[in-house]
Every structure is written in C-alpha cells, then in structure tokens.
C-alpha cells in the first residue's frame, strides 16, 4: 500500500500547487514541497526492510487474462532511483521557488513537475512490464510539458516536440520489444522475467526483442545516434534541466538497462550494441561538450557523455561492471544536478550563459564559485571527490575487458575511455576557470552577486554529498550501493573496494594521462573549437530532424489528399468494396459453404410475392430520379416484405412493417414537398457502371451469405424463451414477452433512442429557416381540407384507436403490443393532421409531445425501478391472475406498465417527427392556422 501511495501521491498531489497558487507563490511551492516530502518520508519508511534485503511489493490484478496487473516493487535498484527522484526532486522544488520569475505561472510549473515525478516513480517501482511502459510514456508526455514550459520561446516548443517525438517513438519500439519479451517469458511480471535470463537469451526472438528494447532505452538516455534531442531540451527552465538531466528522465534509459540486466545482458550481441553505442556516445559527446559556449549546452553534452559511460559499463555485462554503473549513476546525479543549478544561478544573476562573455565572477559570487569548483572537480574525476572513485573503477573495468571490438586491438576501448576522460577534464576546467577566474567581465546584462540562500542551499547540499562520498564512500554510499547492486545483478555482487588508493596501477596511469592531456586540451581549446566550427563537417541534427518531420508530414498530407477528395460516395464505394471482398473471401477459400438445408417447399403465391419484391427493389434503383414514383415503388417493397413476414410465421413483424411503411411514406412525402420532384441526370456512364458492378457484387455476396446461413443448422437459445414465456413472463406471445420482459433492458434503451431521435429532429427543424428561393409550389387544389376526406377520417379515428387499443391489450398473448399499437395510434392521428390540419388536430389532441415522450420513458423506467422496491434487479417482471366477479379471471403484469411506456414513446416520438416537418414552410408564406401549433 505504501508503494502505491508513493507513486500516486505526486500524481494526485499535482493538483495542490496549482490550486494553492491563488494564495501566493510561497504557498504553491510549499504544497509541492509537502507532497514531495511526504512521498519521500513514505519511501524512507521502507528503508529498514529494503536494507534488510526484503522487497516490499504491492500487487493488484487488473486484467489477469492478458497478464496485466498493477504491480509495484521496491527492490534495491528501485529504491535507489526513487530515493534520487524524490531527494533531488525536493531540492529542485526549493530551487525553483527562487529561480522562477514573477511572470512565470508557478502553480503550473509545480503541477507538471509533480506529474513528472509520479511518472518517474512509476517507472522505477513497477513490477510489470506493461505498467512500466505506461509510466515510461507518461514521463515522455510530462517532460514535454516541462521542456515546453516557456511557451513563448520557439526553441522551448521545438525542443519539447523533438524530445517527445524521439523518446515517445523509442517508447513505441520498446512496447513492441516488451510484448516480445512477455511472449518469450510467458509473463509480464518483471520479478519473474528477471529469473529467466537463460531461457530468454536462448530464444529465437532474443535479437529483435533486444534491439527494440534498446531503442527505447537509448532514445531516453540520449545515446548516439539518438542523442540530439537532449541539447535542444536545454531550452527548458534550469530547474527542469537539473531534474530531468541529472537524476530522472535520461536516467530512465540506463535504469532500464540495469533493470533488465539479469534477463538480457551477457551475450555478445548485448555487448556490441550497448557498449558500442555507449562508447561512441561517451567520446563524441565529451568532445562536443568542450566546444560549446553555452553553459547549459556544455552540461547537456557532458550529461550525454556520462550516460554513455554508464551505458558502456552495463554493456560490458559483468557483475563488477554493473556495480560501477550503479555507483556512477549515484555520483553523476549528485554533481550534475548541482552543476545545472549552478549554471542556473549564474544565468539568473548575470543574465547570460555564454562562457565567452562570462569571466572573473569569483569576486562577486564567491560562494557560487566554491560550489561550482567542487561539483566540477567531481565531474572531472579529481581525487577526494565522488566522481574520482567511479571513474577509477570504470577505467579498471575497461582495461579488464573480456570481449574485443576489433580483433587484436585490445587497447581500443581503454584508449577511447582515456580520450573521453581527457575531454571531460578539459570541459570541467573550462566550466570553472573561464567563468569564475580571469579578468572581471565588464558588459554583463546584470551586476552579479551571490543568490539568495534558498537557491544556494540545494547546490550546497549536493556539493557536500560529492565531497563526503568522495572521502568516506563506504560509510555514506556503501549500503545503498550494496542493495542496489544486488538487486541489479540478481545475486550478491562480487568483491569491490570503495577506497581512494588502489596503488600504482593501469587505471591510475590512465587518470594521470587524462589530467595532463585535459589541461593541455583546455589550454589549446580554441584550436579544437576552431576545428569543430570550421573545416570539420558536422551534421546539424536539428536540421535533419526537422527535414525528416517535414517530409513525413508532406507524405501523410499527400496520401490523405489522394484518398480523401471530399466525395462521401467515394468513401462509401471503398467501404462497400472492402466489405464485399471481406464477405467473398471465405466463400472463395471454401471456409463457408452451403449446408443441407431444411428445404422449405415453395408455392406459387410466394413466387409472385418474391418476383414483385425483387422487381420493385430493382425498379426503385432504376427509377430513383423520378422521386414520387420511386417512393411508390419502395412502398411496394415494404408491402411485399410484410406479406413475406406473414407467410414466414412472423405476424408481429408484419404488423410493425406495415405501420412503419406508411409512416415512412408520409415522412418522405413531407420531405419531397420541399425538394425538387425530379433528380438531375448527372452520373457518367462509367460511374453508373462502377456502381452497378458494386451493387451486383454486394447483392451476390449478401445472397450467398444468407443462403449459407439459411441452409446450415441453427443452434438457438430460444428454447429457453419459448419454455419460460408463459410460466415466467405470463404471456403467450413470446416475441412480446421477450421485448417487455426477457430483454426489457434492450427495449428500454431502444425507446430512449427513439425519444432522442424525435427530440433531435425537433431541434433541427426548430432552427430550420427555409429560404424563399425554394419556391414551394402553388398547389393545384385550393381546398386545404376536402370535406369528404375530413368527414370520413373523423369517423375513422375512433375505429383506428379501437384497433390500436385492441392490439395493445392483447399484445402480451397474441400478435400486437406497445410498439405496434403505438404506430397504429400515430398513424390514426397523422390521418387527422393530413385531413383536418395541424391547428384543428392540435386543439383537440395532445399538444405537448415532448412531455408525452418523457412520460413514456419515465413510465418504462419506473416499472423497472419498481422491481427494486421488492428487492429484485432492475426490470424484473411481475404478474399474477385475479378473479373478478362477472368478468372472470384476468391478468395483471408489470410488463403492461412497461408496454404503456413503450406505447407512449412511440406515439409521441413519431408524431413529434412528422408534425414538425409539416410545419416547415417558406418564411414569407407562413400559414395562418399553424403558427400557434405546438409540436
């Protein structure tokens, strides 16, 4: 539980600083500090068990079928990283309070920072590959927000976008790698995967899986050739850089190498990929760092270089090297965070970060200078500072290498390493000497002085750590290193010695070489910079990246434009074509074929009906431009369909089909009144041929599918409904009992859809202004309401309502029911509207169809809720039989109430649709009698 809290606290707590900013900047910073501090305290409360060798776990099964569980564990490695994330996070919160200016929205800054912190904690504490990946992508997203925090700076936005594309893209590759890994191991649980190193490395898919996972790790840790995003991310505010590029974001990549070390490391492929990328990064970035004039740019490349060094160590693949890697992660976090904050102080107090302009700051900023010297000395690897220890151990590992990059050249890696160390010494000297010593700079934008205490404190704490670890490493860093290393390797780590003096040996020689060479390189730095900026061709990563992105965007734009020309019919044709192919494929491959079939015998009448139906369907398509005729023909199709339903034992369907048919005709006539009566002839022959081809293909495919279904035996669940209809539902019409009882919930949803459609139509018509250019024609007949028609329909109304009631009441036991009765009532009322007009009918019948719809839905819903009163689930039916004098036995069923709801909704929905359409007319020719009608 504590583990989950540690992760969730920053994620949820991100709201607090954003909320507290309304009371002031201090309050906001304090809220962020309290959230981070609480999470830190929770983590420390786990210390005793972690240092005792236990692994606190938390596990919630999420989707067990695909091996997904929300699992966290705090082994030594996770604990170390969580410690760094929260510890340095606390210092960054303090530092940022003084760094951010009045204009910056501080609440948002802390909210982003906490979100990022939570995501990082999720990555390092996850015990499930998928959970790890989700948090991993979250770090990409939240770091995007942090890097682009200064939205007004174009470099900030571009840097953020580049970081997101590179690390997010790497995350996608990693997702594929993780799924492969999960399939190889048969589980996504990290702690189980780590035990299966041999199985995984022996698997055929090991190589592609490793490459994919490494792409994820390398993009995140800015390893060559994915390093280019990191320097551009320096457009972020310095607290962000200090946090992301010392202890967190970029360390996630090397964390992954450490995390999966037992499962993936030790093979030749691992060595070449990881050590190769690391060594290239190490040397290349160290060289570029010396040539940078921007303080943060120099630090960015030095970060890339140090990450390369850690990568090399994990790539070597031995337990001893991994221990050194872990140790350097700790050391690098301390001095690099301190240096970034230091650079931020210089920038903040002088107004510039350009090393060429800065000079002789010592006089004005002595404290800052001392702290910078300490951290830079640690970075260069000067004895008595923490960086020295891990660097010596690194030299030792590089010297004792098992594999060789190039056969017969065993000194290659040691040489690369020494050269990189040489540059490292040189840029460390440049960072301190060029900035703090020499003649005092004259033209600084601001007069420099030491910053407020709150800004110095975090830097001081980290600098102190560098010294303490450097002098008494066993005491301070020993226990943490021991548990983290044990967790990384999976077994007890081999003997290693955290002492300052190992005697005269090769690593010491390498160090000496690096220092002498580094001083020379610093002295001759302008020659190197001149070489870098001048004759050496140096590809500009940003330009390549932007070009690639532009080409991709142009490509997708072109593809979209080619596919999408704005013709809906064209998309539809593509869809239909695809559907036909998908339907036809199983027939061609033979996986679908006709069965024996019951072979229901034919009779002559069926053939006639069939012929009329098919002929009318085809005629509708052929005659569609003569619109009224097409409507008449389509209603013939509907009528024949109703006959077919009657013949094929579906009386309820026949009744519904008949009623809907008439309502549809009325609807389309209403629409035709407002549309041209003839469609234009505009289709080319080719277009018609294409569509006829598609239509024939679709018709054949549907026919084939229907034939296959009809001739194969069926396994139906209807036996239950037939058996339970009367004893369980109290009705003999099984279709109706299914509608109002067995599947009442579905029906409830459907009447709600009907209600929404009715209201949506009303809303659309309400705002429909008919332009006068439509010229709704002058009628042939001046008589609005012919007398004969009016009289007959008025006589018909009670009869029709009687039919409707009859169908409704018997619906539970015989064909009929709420839907059909509702449609019949609606048709009966529509007849009155047609014959006697909106005004007359509205005055005498329902005025408020909205209310009726609501009432219908509520009645059905209330029937369902009623079941709750008796302790049954929603919509449980109830019925009983009663004896009444004279009338005899009769039935009362809750289903009848439900059916009333259906009935009301259908009547009101249909009328709302049709009557409102009847009200559409030219604005200039408003009918006198319809103005006050309520729809």
């Amino acid at each position: 539980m504590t583990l989950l809290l540690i992760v969730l606290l920053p994620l949820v707590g991100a709201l607090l600083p954003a909320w507290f900013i309304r009371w002031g900047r201090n309050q906001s910073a304090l809220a962020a500090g309290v959230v981070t501090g609480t999470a830190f305290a929770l983590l420390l409360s786990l210390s005793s068990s972690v240092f005792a060798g236990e692994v606190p776990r938390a596990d919630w099964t999420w989707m067990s079928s695909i091996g997904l569980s929300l699992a966290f564990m705090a082994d030594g490695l996770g604990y170390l990283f969580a410690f760094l994330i929260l510890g340095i996070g606390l210092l960054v919160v303090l530092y940022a309070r003084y760094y951010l200016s009045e204009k910056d929205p501080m609440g948002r800054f802390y909210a982003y920072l906490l979100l990022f912190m939570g995501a990082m904690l999720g990555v390092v504490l996850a015990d499930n590959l998928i959970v790890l990946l989700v948090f991993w992508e979250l770090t990409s997203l939240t770091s995007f927000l942090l890097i682009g925090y200064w939205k007004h700076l174009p470099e900030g936005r571009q840097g953020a976008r580049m970081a997101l594309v590179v690390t997010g893209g790497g995350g996608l590759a990693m997702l594929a790698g993780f799924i492969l890994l999960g399939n190889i191991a048969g589980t996504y649980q990290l702690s189980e995967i780590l035990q299966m190193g041999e199985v995984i490395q022996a698997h055929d898919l090991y190589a592609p899986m490793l490459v994919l996972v490494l792409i994820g790790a390398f993009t995140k840790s800015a390893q060559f050739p994915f390093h280019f995003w990191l320097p551009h991310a320096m457009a972020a505010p310095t607290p962000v850089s200090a946090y992301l590029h010392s202890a967190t974001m970029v360390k996630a990549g090397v964390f992954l190498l450490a995390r999966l070390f037992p499962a993936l490391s030790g093979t030749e492929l691992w060595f070449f990929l990881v050590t190769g990328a690391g060594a290239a990064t190490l040397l290349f970035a160290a060289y570029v760092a010396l040539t940078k004039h921007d303080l943060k740019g120099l630090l960015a490349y030095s970060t890339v270089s140090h990450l390369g060094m850690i990568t090399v160590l994990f790539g070597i693949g031995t337990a001893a090297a991994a221990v050194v890697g872990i140790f350097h992660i700790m050391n690098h976090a301390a001095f690099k965070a301190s240096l970034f904050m230091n650079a931020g102080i210089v920038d903040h107090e002088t107004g510039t970060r350009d090393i060429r302009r800065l000079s002789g700051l010592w006089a004005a900023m002595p404290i800052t200078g001392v702290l910078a010297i300490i951290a830079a000395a640690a970075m260069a690897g000067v004895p008595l500072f923490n960086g020295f220890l891990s660097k010596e151990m690194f030299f030792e590992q590089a010297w004792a290498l098992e594999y060789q990059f190039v056969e017969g050249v065993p000194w290659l890696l040691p040489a690369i390493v020494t050269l990189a160390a040489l540059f490292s010494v040189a840029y460390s000297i440049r960072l301190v000497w060029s900035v703090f010593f020499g003649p005092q700079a004259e033209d600084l934008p601001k007069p420099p002085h030491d910053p407020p205490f709150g800004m110095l404190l975090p830097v001081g704490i980290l600098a102190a750590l560098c010294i303490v670890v450097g002098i008494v490493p066993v005491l301070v860093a020993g226990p943490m290193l021991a548990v983290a290393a044990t967790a990384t390797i999976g077994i007890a780590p081999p003997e290693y010695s955290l002492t300052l003096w190992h005697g005269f040996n090769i690593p010491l020689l390498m160090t000496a070489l690096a220092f002498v060479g580094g001083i020379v390189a610093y002295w001759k730095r302008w020659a190197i910079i001149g070489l870098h900026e001048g004759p050496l061709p140096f590809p500009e990563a940003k330009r390549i990246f932007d070009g690639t992105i532009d080409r991709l965007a142009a490509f997708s734009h072109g593809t979209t434009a080619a596919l999408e020309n704005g013709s809906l019919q064209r998309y539809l044709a593509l869809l239909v074509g695809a559907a036909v192919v998908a339907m036809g494929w199983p027939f061609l491959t033979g996986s679908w074929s006709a069965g024996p079939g019951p072979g229901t015998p034919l009779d002559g009448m069926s053939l006639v009906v069939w012929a009329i139906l098919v002929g009318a369907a085809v005629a509708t398509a052929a005659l569609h431009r003569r619109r009224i005729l097409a409507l008449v023909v389509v209603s013939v199709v509907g009528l024949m369909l109703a006959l077919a339903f009657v013949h094929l034992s579906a009386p309820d369907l026949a009744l519904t089909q008949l009623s809907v048919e008439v309502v549809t005709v009325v609807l389309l006539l209403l629409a035709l009144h407002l549309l041209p009566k003839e469609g234009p002839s505009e289709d080319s022959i080719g277009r018609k041929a294409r569509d006829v081809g598609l239509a024939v293909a679709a018709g054949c495919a549907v026919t084939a599918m229907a034939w296959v279904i009809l001739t194969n035996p069926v396994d139906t669940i209807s036996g239950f409904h037939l058996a339970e209809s009367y004893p369980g539902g109290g009705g003999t019409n099984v279709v109706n009992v299914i509608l109002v009882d067995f599947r009442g919930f579905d029906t409830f949803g459907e009447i709600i859809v009907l209600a929404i459609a009715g209201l949506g139509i009303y809303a659309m018509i309400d705002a429909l202004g008919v332009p006068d250019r439509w010229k709704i024609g002058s009628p042939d007949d001046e008589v609005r309401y012919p007398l004969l028609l009016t009289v007959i329909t008025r006589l018909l109304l009670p009869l029709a309502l009687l039919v409707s009631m009859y169908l409704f009441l018997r619906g539970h036991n015989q064909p009929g029911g709420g839907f059909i009765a509702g449609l019949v009532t609606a048709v009966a009322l529509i007849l009155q509207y047609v014959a006697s007009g909106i005004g007359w009918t509205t005055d005498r019948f329902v005025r408020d169809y909205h209310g009726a719809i609501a009432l219908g839905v509520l009645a059905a819903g209330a029937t369902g809720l009623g079941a709750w009163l008796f302790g049954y689930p929603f919509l449980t039916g109830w019925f009983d039989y009663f004896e009444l004098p004279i009338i005899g036995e009769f039935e009362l069923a809750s289903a009848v109430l439900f059916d009333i709801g259906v009935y009301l909704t259908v009547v009101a929905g249909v009328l709302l649709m049709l009557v409102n359409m009847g009200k559409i007319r030219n604005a200039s020719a408003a009918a006198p009698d319809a103005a006050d009608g309520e729809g």
Partner: protein
Amino acid sequence: MDFLVMEMLVATGVGAMAGAGVYLVLRARTYSVILGLALLGYAANTFLFASGRLSVGLAPVISDDALAYPDPLPQALVLTAIVIGFAMIAFAVVLMLRAHADLGTDHVDGPGGAGR
C-alpha cells in the same frame, strides 16, 4: 441440392434489396441516399430475421395445439430494429432538409464527385 426452395427466395430477395440499396446510397443526391438507406434497412432486417431460419404457417404464440414454433428471438430483435430504422431514416431526412436549406443544394458527393 435443391435450389427451388423458400430459402433461395429469401436469400435472393435480401440480396436484391441490398444491391439496390447499395446502388442508391452511391448516388449523389440526398433523396436517393435516403431511399437506399430504407432498402438497406429492409435487407438487414430480413437478413437478421432469416438467421432464425424459415418456417411457414406457424406463429410464435404459445398454444396447446401448436406443433412447433418459429424462433422468436430474431423476431423480437427485428421488431425493434424496424422502429429504430424508421427513426434513423427520419433523422436522416431532416438532416438532408437542413443541409439543403443551409447549403442550398442536396448534392452530397463532395467537390470531386459527380455533378460538379
């Protein structure tokens, strides 16, 4: 296999309605599209209904002297589908009127389609 059976009539009937529907929805004018939607609706309903297989002269009504029953479940599903299908068509019709009023045309085939 005997093809002169009721099953073949239903299958071809569904196919004819679906084919005509497809042809109509591929036209460029809203009214034709609506007709096509109606026909496609018929085809889909009949197809669903047919998934319960065919029977002649029965009724899904429980009675003592009934020898057999048709499958009631597809019938119940199709019954609501017919009503919802009407609601959908009505919605499409009003949408088409609205588009006609606001855009001044009932042409829906886009700038690259027929008739432009």
